[in-house]
């Protein structure tokens, strides 16, 4: 199946939709949660997308794959869940009683990140002949080094409930933001068509 990852499935533009979905689901499953804060996240990331470069980086034939679309979408969903978890962990720090409300978000974010690893590995192999491409991610079908790096912080949290702490979750979300938006801003200089 030939399906190109359009800009709408890329992180800067797809992430606000994912966050909106997280807010919607949480508002149904846990109406008492602090939804305005998640909506504020949606607004912040939407504003970032407004200023982001429009158009698409010309896709090579190696990018015209359903696996690429699945990778970008699952990665964005994982990031959205990590940011929401980081937000709730931060809110929890300012409350007197300990709250685990961020835990399910982080767990499902970790699962979405595993989906991204599977789909990314399949896409990478079908396109490049390697399931693990060494190099810093710049074109999507690029490096996996910091992709794994981003996965380690939530792994620390998810795999070690004994060491569970809000600070680790906030640090993980900050790392995800720093690395992923580092790529997005770097890619703003790439040649684009349309938009």
């Amino acid at each position, binding site marked *: 199946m030939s399906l190109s990852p359009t800009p709408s499935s890329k992180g800067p533009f797809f992430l606000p939709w994912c966050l909106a979905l997280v807010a919607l689901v949480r508002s149904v499953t846990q109406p008492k949660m602090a939804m305005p804060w998640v909506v504020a996240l949606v607004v912040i990331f939407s504003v970032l997308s407004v200023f982001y470069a429009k158009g698409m980086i010309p896709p090579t034939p190696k990018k015209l794959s359903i696996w690429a679309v699945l990778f970008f979408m699952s990665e964005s969903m994982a990031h959205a869940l990590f940011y929401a978890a980081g937000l709730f962990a931060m809110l929890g720090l300012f409350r007197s009683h300990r709250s685990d409300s961020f835990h399910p978000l982080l767990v499902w974010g970790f699962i979405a990140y595993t989906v991204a690893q599977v789909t990314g590995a399949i896409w990478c192999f079908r396109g490049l002949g390697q399931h693990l491409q060494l190099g810093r991610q710049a074109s999507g079908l690029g490096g996996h080094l910091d992709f*794994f790096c981003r996965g380690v912080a939530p792994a620390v949290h998810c795999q070690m409930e004994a060491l569970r702490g809000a600070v680790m979750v906030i640090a993980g979300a900050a790392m995800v933001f720093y690395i992923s938006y580092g790529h997005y801003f770097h890619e703003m200089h790439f040649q684009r068509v349309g938009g």
Partner: protein
Amino acid sequence: MIAMKKIWNGFGDIRIAFILLITASATLMTGAFYAEHHFSLFSELNRMRIQDWLPVHLADQPQWVWWVPLLFVVMAALGLNTFICASNRVARLLPQRRTLSPGRFFYLLTPSLVHFLFLIIMLGHLTTFVAGTWQTVPLETGREISISGERRPYRVQAVEDDFFPETAALRNRIAQTTVTLADADGKLTRLQYTRPVFMDSRFFLLDKIKKGNSAAKKRILTATDKETCNKAGVYIEADKVRRDGRQLLLVVSDPGLAWIVSGLTLIMILMVGYFFVQTNGAGNRKSGSVEA
């Protein structure tokens, strides 16, 4: 015996796992920065076995590649720690198998299974690093190509580029390429981008990655003479005339691939099942936690 047990439990300490994961994260991040600034150097490793690549560059450019052996050491230690943690947990669970229902027992066993699968994935990566082979062969219509390990050559019958429509913003860019190979018996094999063909225990893929400076000259990006991981410019053919030798065939043997993809898929399924049960309250979070 007591000393052995102390060492075993010491290596399996969850605090060591914490330190190792943070160290792995820091090493990967450091590596990502090095890889960004020395893309050509590290992209070589994508087509070479680690034992062929590392000694050469560790001797010539230790300041850029020092983190690679460190990463292997950290990951090996993490693997050992994970194995001990998961083994200890399974050893504690097994005596309870008669008192627990099969479903409950499997639920409690799931986190340990995930850890064992993680080890299989790491071993799969190690297998790829040390035993994978990547052979690149230039393709030209009408020519015969020899692939190492193949007794008889293939003949390139056709190389056809499909372009995006003239009305599209991506006009003059290649949307897909079809290469037809004929073996000695006349049997035809069609190859396209992202659609590898599995033959004789190897994957055959199309490729267009360039080597050396010629790649940089053909790029249409803003001025820089460094090789880049953004290959958007490689697939443009302004005059639609294919230049000889530009199309490449990549023949890959990756004995670790099946372990990695199967392991990741199983982990995904197990985690979804485990956390779905946990979220719905059927699982006792404390007793079902992954703490070792």
